[in-house]
């Protein structure tokens, strides 16, 4: 009886949506944390030498891959 109720409450589509949300959300936090230090270091180096803008930008967005993986997983789930 209880199992039947649980199955009725937990709709598979809803669970998928939660999973997709978690995948994007958590990886977003992860890449944010990673980018925080790299970004501030890049700005620091750029303040002294403007030519480092390009390199700094590329290094800053490297952890962005984490959230892209999250997005891919989310798309695959839903």
């Amino acid at each position, binding site marked *: 009886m209880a199992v039947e109720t649980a199955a009725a409450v937990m709709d598979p589509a809803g669970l998928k949506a939660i999973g997709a949300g978690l995948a994007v959300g958590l990886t977003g936090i992860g890449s944010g944390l990673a980018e925080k*230090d790299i970004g501030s270091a890049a*700005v620091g180096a750029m*303040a002294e030498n403007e030519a480092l803008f390009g390199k700094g930008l590329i290094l800053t967005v490297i952890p962005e891959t984490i959230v892209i993986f999250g997005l891919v997983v989310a798309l695959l789930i839903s």
Partner: protein
Amino acid sequence: MRLLQRLKRGMSTQKSRPQGNSNYAYTTARVRAMKSKLLPKETYPRLINMQIDEITRFVGELEYKEDVDYLARFYEGVDLIEHALNRNLAVTFTKLISISEGELNFLISEYLKKYDIWNIKTILRGKYCGASTDEILEAVVAAGRLTYTFTSELAAKPTYEDVIASLSTSEYASILKDYDGTNLSVIENRLDKKYYQDLFTAIGDPKSKDRKLFSKFIRTDIDMKNLITLFRLKKYKVNDPETADLILDGGLRLKYKEVEKMMPLAFEDFLTELENTSYWEELSDCCGPNMDSLTDVETKLKKLRLKTAASFSHVYPLSIVPIMDYILSKENEVNNLRIIIRGKAVGLSDEEIKSQLVI
């Protein structure tokens, strides 16, 4: 975030010790970029071959441009470069304090307090031998917590009593009040000792690896200072028992007891004793009982200091050590430039100037 940090600071019991987040990533990256702008070692031989005017122009095109331009209204020739170098050093180090936050800021300003002490010592020395305000200001580097305006006000005071009265609210007041116009060396020693004591209190009991490295860095500094003092005392045969006060406690590879044991020895015996220490390996090729001057040893020790600092800075890139390494390298660059310019001005030969440089 800033507001939160300020609130936290306001609530903390130790007001002088900020607990906020330190921006290590930003500061170290910026400092590394600043370090890349220092003069490469190939520049020095070129500078030695130049005349003073050429050096002034060369220096004026580098990082010192702004300072040379600003000061060109007041000074010329050697004095101009000397003042520009001092001003640049002060501006650079004050910048380090202003770009850092939290605990990092606290540690840097504690370390740079040596310039406050240096300035107070310079002013007292100036007053002691009756130097003019301009002469005193020539040697002032306002890189610490005391601003240039305040320091120049101090330098303009007519007597040492007025200087001490103006510093009555500072942390040095307790030491300075014992100055009676004659015991300058005792006061200088006590100021230096207070600096290291404060620095050790600031580091506290080092637990993390980068803190341990910083503590090691400071203790190596003490070793070098003690060694130079010992070499000078022994070479010029000073055996006054009062000189024991000159030794600083807290060395890394040379403990206080070892240094104390070396104090009463003659120069030859001191060298024999030094052979048992780990510094002998680095010093052996320029030390001997018949050495004429201490320039080689002092240059060697300074080089060793720079080398250790550079190797430390690669161990923990996100810590205070790369910043300390930069401070040392910058000081060294300014010193080298000063040696070249002053040497040229008094007509020293190129060889003599070269032997004084720490490259």
